[in-house]
Structure formats: structure tokens, C-alpha cells
């Protein structure tokens, strides 16, 4: 396991750059991780991220894309528009969570 300095904080990350401890995540880190993916975070992005953070806190795992669309009120189209080219990994990564567990 490696550590990486993101937004001035040393955090533990895995080989794909996902935070391994969700508790180390901050909003500033999310902004930096999003930039790495070429995404400028807006209120719509935060709605998704906030939902994922609370879902993960409740269930212990990052929500699947369908859990996000069902739970946050953000449609599939919007979700793929906000986090283009691979929202499953991007949303989880920016939210400081592991990859979603589950197929849908």
C-alpha cells in the first residue's frame, strides 16, 4: 500500500489510486481527485458524492450505479454526463470509497 499527498494531506491509496480509508477523505481531496479525472465539481456532482458517502457510511460499501440513481434522484443519463467514461469507478474514487460491490 502506498501513500499519496492529495490537497496537502498524506492519504493511503491502493495501486489504482483509490483511498483505502474512507475516513481520510475530505472535500478538498474530492476536488483534487476529480481534477485528475478532468472533472470540475459542481453542485450536481456533490449531490452524487454526498449520497455515496452517506450510503457507504450506512452499508460499508460504495453504492452501485443503480443504487445511486435510485437513491439520489439523479438519472442514469445525468450520472453518465456528470462523470463521463466510466462513472462506476470515477464516482467511487472521487468519493474516497472502494469500488462498488455488486453488478448493477
Amino acid at each position: 500500500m502506498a501513500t499519496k499527498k492529495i490537497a496537502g494531506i498524506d492519504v493511503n491509496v491502493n495501486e489504482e489510486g483509490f483511498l483505502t480509508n474512507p475516513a481520510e477523505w475530505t472535500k478538498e481531496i474530492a476536488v483534487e481527485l476529480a481534477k485528475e479525472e478532468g472533472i470540475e465539481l459542481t453542485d450536481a456532482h456533490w449531490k452524487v458524492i454526498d449520497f455515496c458517502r452517506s450510503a457507504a457510511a450506512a452499508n460499508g460499501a460504495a453504492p452501485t450505479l443503480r443504487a445511486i440513481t435510485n437513491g439520489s434522484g439523479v438519472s442514469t443519463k445525468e450520472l453518465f454526463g456528470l462523470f463521463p467514461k466510466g462513472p462506476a469507478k470515477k464516482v467511487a474514487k472521487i468519493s474516497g470509497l472502494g469500488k462498488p460491490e455488486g453488478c448493477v
Partner: protein
Amino acid sequence: MSEEPRKIAFICSKGNLDMVYPALVMGWAALGNGIDVTIFFTFWGMDMINKARIDHLEIPPIANTSMKMNMMGIPGYIGIPQIMGIIPGMTAFASSLMKKKMKGLEVPTVREYMEMLVDAGANFYACKMSVDMFDLKKEDFIDGVKDIVTAGDFMDMTEGAQIVFI
């Protein structure tokens, strides 16, 4: 990140429930991971895009040696006698059991899955030969089917893609 995105193409040739879900599950996973998805519907796979058929896909117990009575709550792996499979209503019964089980696992219905794939950017195409054979028209298809294309067109549009035949 200027590299070409990975591309995957599915050829869906079956309309039985158990053969319909694989492309839906894998296609959705691919889109979630940023992989470009194209699906070509042919032969019985046309049922997946046919408005009149999409909500009525079934799974028959006949000649399905893996389907055991444990689906009905009978423990162990006791087979379903093939002769029972020919009783009217058995296919509907098996299909409703499977659909109930999937609903319990929060697996979307075929129609909902197809809508999710379209919204996520999948490209759907119908096979020209099957369209002619089944006397179908573009109006018979669900939204999201971009065009009716030939096998040759499909080969052109899937250059460099990984192809999965189901």
C-alpha cells in the same frame, strides 16, 4: 488520456430469459467502466428490442438440465421430469419464479435494463436479415435502436472491438 477507449460488442441471438441477461449485465458493467458498448440484435435476440415481446420473455424448463426443483423451494438438486415440462403453464410458472427471484435481488427487468443501457450510451442495432425474416419495422422497436444494419455494417462498426456472441 488520448488513447482509444476499449470497445466491446455483443451479438444477442437468443430471447430466453437466461440468455438475455448476460449481455445486459456485462454491457452495464462495461459502460460503468468507461468501455464503449455496441449491441447487435439478431434472430431470437430481436425479442429484446421488440416492444411487443420485451416484457414477456420466458425460460422453459424443457431440455434445461440445470433447472432443478430447488427453484421452487424443494431442497437439493432434484430434477424436473421433462414430461412435466410439457404441461401447459409450466414455462410461465418457471418464468414467474425466476422473475420473482431476480426482483428480490433488485435486478432490473429487461425493459428497465435496456433503458439504462441506452441512457448510459450503448449503441443498439437490429439485424437486417432478422428484420426481414420476422416482418418487423423500426417502429416495432423500443427507443434506442439506432438503425437496422447488415452483417457487413456490423463488422465495419466494430473494428477493434472485442466481440461476444450470446
